[in-house]
């Protein structure tokens, strides 16, 4: 038994996560993601709040800005859920007479093979850092929430991983996106659903995404219900489980009609549909959400985003780029120069975002 300094605790615990303690500390995104995967193996199924709490509480005294770290943990959890390490699903133990909350589950250890022969690792192995043998685990490249494994000469990684028992998820299935749609078309389709919805009563705990507020500060767009009139993307807290996302029509602050997301089956999360709808709303009203591109190290470009995007967009960028830290935005990706043109087109055509002029 001995006394340790905060630095020594940091180093020891980063090593326990299988990460390089000389380069990372517990507040790094890689360590946060490792800690989230670890607690997911112990605690899932549970709520996002349970996972965040379990990662943040042991950091007291080890990090200076515990609230800042809490925000980072929440953002990383969202990135990992979009990526597929953690799955948001209805409570599978719930019954019809019970609260049908959305809970977080640990995805099984799986991988997505890439054309290059590399693989993207997904999922959680309870009680272990990964499901891989030590020799493979040591070769994992950790980039924020992303874990990549590249083949050695002559090595067939997908075959080896299948033999080890990991589930192969084809990239077509992993990257599956909704069919392309113009923003007005999407908005009209959802509004038709809203018009056809039954009249709604009181909706406790409802928060609204205010389209009038600046599109470059996502957290600042959320407002409480007062006397608004119109149609809004909203979310409402649940007693237990993730909030429910919806499109709601208000008159004088009173809900008239409401459509819950997801409306297209449950392949995507409610928030994915809600965020996409908000992008369409912003685009249709002539105030599209923004993104910014600036030069990155070497032959790369950094794309910065100010609002969350659906999981299928993040997965695409996880596949072709790398998540990077960047201040002044919600999240950012680094892309090789040769991919930039196609990604700019994707952001314009599929997410209806507008590029900010370069400084």
């Amino acid at each position, binding site marked *: *038994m001995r006394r340790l*300094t905060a630095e020594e605790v940091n180093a020891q615990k980063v090593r326990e996560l299988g990460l390089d303690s000389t380069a990372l500390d517990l507040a790094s995104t890689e360590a946060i993601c490792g800690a989230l995967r670890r607690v997911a193996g*112990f605690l899932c199924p549970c709520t996002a709040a349970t996972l965040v709490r379990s990662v943040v509480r042991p950091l*007291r005294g080890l990090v200076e800005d515990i609230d800042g770290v809490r925000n980072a943990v929440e953002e990383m959890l969202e990135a990992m859920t979009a990526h597929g390490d953690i799955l948001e699903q209805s409570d599978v133990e719930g019954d019809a007479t019970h609260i049908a909350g959305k809970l977080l*589950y640990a995805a099984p250890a799986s991988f997505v093979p890439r054309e290059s022969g590399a693989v993207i690792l997904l999922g959680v192995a*309870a*009680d272990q850092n990964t499901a891989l*043998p030590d020799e493979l685990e040591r070769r994992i490249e950790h980039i924020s929430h992303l874990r990549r494994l590249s083949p050695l000469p002559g090595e067939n990684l997908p075959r080896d991983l299948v033999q080890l028992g990991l589930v192969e998820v084809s990239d077509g299935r992993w990257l599956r996106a909704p069919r392309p749609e113009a923003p007005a078309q999407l908005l009209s389709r959802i509004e038709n659903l809203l018009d056809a919805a039954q009249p709604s009563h009181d909706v406790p705990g409802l928060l609204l995404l205010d389209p009038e507020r600046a599109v470059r500060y996502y957290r600042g767009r959320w407002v409480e219900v007062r006397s608004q009139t119109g149609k809004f993307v909203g979310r409402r807290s649940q007693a237990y489980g993730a909030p429910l996302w919806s499109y709601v029509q208000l008159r004088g602050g009173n809900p008239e009609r409401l459509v819950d997301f997801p409306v297209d089956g449950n392949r995507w999360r409610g928030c994915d549909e809600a965020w996409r709808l908000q992008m369409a709303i912003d685009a249709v009203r002539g105030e599209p959400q923004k993104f910014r591109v600036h030069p990155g190290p070497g032959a790369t470009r950094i794309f910065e985003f100010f609002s969350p995007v659906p999981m299928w967009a993040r997965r695409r960028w996880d596949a072709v780029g790398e998540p990077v830290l960047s201040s002044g935005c919600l999240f950012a990706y680094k892309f090789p120069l040769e991919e930039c043109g196609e990604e700019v087109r994707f952001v314009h055509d599929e997410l209806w975002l507008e590029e900010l002029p370069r400084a």
Partner: protein
Amino acid sequence: MDASLLEWEARLADHFAELYRRRRSSALSHPIFALEHGLDLSEINSLSQAVRAHILIKPPLKSHRLTWVVYSSELGYRYSGDEYWQTFESETPGWTLNGNRYWIRECYRHFQRQFGGAVPTGAWAAHFSIICWPITHAILPKDLQRQLARILYEVRHSFTGELLESPTTLGELVSARSWSATSRFQNLAQETQLVGQISAALLLQGERGSDDLLHPTTLHRIAGDLDRERRAREWLRGARQSAKERAQVRGLGILGRSRMPAINRPEEARKEIATLGIEPRLVLRPTDLQGASWEPSLEISDLSHLLLRFPGTREILTGSRCTVAGAAGRPLARGRCLHGAQRIRLSRWPRADEVLIQFEQRDTQLDYLLRTECLLRPGPLWLFRIASDGLAYELRSLRVRPGERYILVNSDGPPESTQHTISTDLQCEGAYGTLLDLPSVITHDWEETLRSLGLGRAKTIDVWPAGLAPVVWDGEGHGEWLASEQPCLAVCVDHAVDAIMVSMGEKADHPLELSPITPGEVLFVELPQLPVGLHQVHFAKRTCADTDTEVLGDLDVVIRIREARPWSPGVSSSGPFVVQLDPPEPSLEQLWEGHVQVVIRGPAGRSVASEISIFEREGEPATFSKRLPQMKLPVSTDSWWSHFEKHFRKVKKAEEAYDAARFCEVSLTADELGRITLRCERDFTPLRWALRRRDCGYKVRLLDDSGDGTQPTVTRLSFESPIIEEKMDLVAEYDVAEPGGMFVSRLGQLTAAIIVPPVVRGFEDLGCTPRIDAAPRSPESIIRIVRYADLWGRARLPGGFISAMRKRDVLLALDSHITHLVCGDNWTRAEVAARKDGGVSTLKDAVSRRRDEVAIGVVLERDFADLATRACRERVSRIASLLTKFHVLPSTSPSDEASALWLSELALRLASNPAVVQVWAGDQLRVGVNRLMESPTLMRAARFLVLSTDRYLQSNVRIDQLYAGWEWR
């Protein structure tokens, strides 16, 4: 060629004699195995050729015994659970003519006497008294190696110097951990000496002393085979690493002790149980946003820890359903408590003396263990702290901290309302909740409120896990870590103290002194690498350098260290795709005949794909494989069965493949949600039938691996006369005649039966009309029919559907006959009339014509629709209370109540399926039948309920059921 065999014999004799001499000279004198022959692969081939050349022309000779021992153990090494003798015969031409399996056993016995050879032990060896020799002497057949490597990896943190020096104790540990392994591995694990010896040898390979455990060539061979599979290699490497590190560690860990705790040492057992941390924990979950309504649940720990420490509880933990006190739903499926923690919703607050977890099958030792740890903490008050995730977790003390929110639960009644408390609705009978939202500064008023509620204030020193969350942390000083980690604690005080002293162990010698202390500063303490078990860290504070330390008893940290479970493919309890099986490891027959409950859970509406493959031999391609149409989640047992039956079981090729199958694999995939592959092996009993199709009909073969010196008997029962046995001569194979029937073989306590279907040429062959000759109305007649029903019910079914239909026809006939014998002619006539008119009124009148009992039928006619929707157990209670009310059953003492329930269940079982009576009733059958014959009204009431339920459910039965709605589980 005989000269060659003699040369081999001489060489082997020299080798084993030298090995025996060396083994005897070592301190532990481990037995010798035939596989330790020291030959390389080319020499094994040469020896095998010489053996085959000899047996082709003449019987084996005594002077060749060692070569036969080596030859048969080599076959055992490749054995993967199929028919040992079949493989032996096919690889040894001439064996059937010239060989004799009893002679092989004699060879091994001679080997044992002359060279100190190993003697097979355990229940498996007692049942398979010949093949146990070559398989034991094969040490670790190839297909079991991977499983041993996995178990050694799982228990690697329990290794100590003493354990590695005591193979039997190591074998006991492996045996205790083998509950989730295949049945073949479990058989092997019964031989704890053997398993311990091979385990120690594999772990210590290359270390000093390992040669005394196994011959180096043999060890190298087994390790080489293990190395070929990547995952097994990794597991063994990890286990070896731990063994190497811990070989020098003595006296640490609970497993280093030589004996398991026994029931006659209760205090020690209590301590042992505490180390396992199986105490359930209460959790409250909010059901509304305002926190006005909460739903209690009980979180049950993973009981596999209990299994490892108390191996005697295995049969119950793996094979018995579990009831949770206060839970509304059905009992938990067999084995479910061994696969991670379970959270069970409570509809009733358990009583103080009520054991929270109870298994259907009772056992004194397990009852004691559960009584010790599985009670609610003493009431009537329980305190829950509302955590930031919205859940309220039970605390171990009634102490609160400023700025926190709590729910106080009282089982005595609603607490008095005060200005600081808010009454909450606990959705649970027998408990009342109060919400407390403590301010950051506790005022005098608040102090009074807390006092009046029976609460105190926690001391203002905080201890928590630093850096990473452990597996479990209750926020109040109790946590669980993995043995692969080094726990690290953070300490913080909010007031001035001179020093904090931290110590471990009972004596608390040489504490770590933390000073100086600045209020609000966080300090970190790294604990040493701790072995598996329970550890306590004591915290004490000293306010001035010259004063005594004050022990902060409430803040002692209790640390439980457990083994990390190795990852293996499949679904986990933390994922969204859950497959529950009951029994947890069904046999091929149970899967095929629908005697397994399959529940597949997952997000509603998502699809699950299934593929089923049937195999005849290990390592060979499937003989039949089919991808079934997708199912929508969730999948119930009934929908699984109808899907399986429609899309697989009724497929002609599947039926054919099933008859020769040894195992099948069911693969269930739900895209990224997960995938699981279930393996179902054919039941492997010492006496069994094998069946194969021929062009027109079947051939059946009796396989006798019992090694019993006496010959089994064989009889045949036709479908038309299902309780008349025709004696058959014992021959190698029976060419089954056109009408088919049931073939029964008996040998001592062993019985094996198989139903062979008739040749079907037209619709008229689908059904049959079993005849049961009139017998006197006596208990003996009824018991005789029950015994035959049991035999027909347990007989193995081939793949074809027709045999299942014939079996059902026979059981229905036996059922009717029993009913006739107990209920009488009038009732039989009423049943015939009811079949014609399709109603139940005629039956109602026939339940009893006695004036004081006539209302029984009326009540049943009124209630049967409701009862049809309930479980069998509820119907039993209803019948018992009704018949007691009308004095058909006595009700003067508490034992009468239990007796009424038992007798009612007997009547309902007899009336609905006589095949499920004999095993259930055991030696009480005769007494029960006598009682029923004295009270035929009970049997008639039972029969009325069976038939009316069946009719209400429109006779919608599975092929293995006689009447709809009567499935006895």
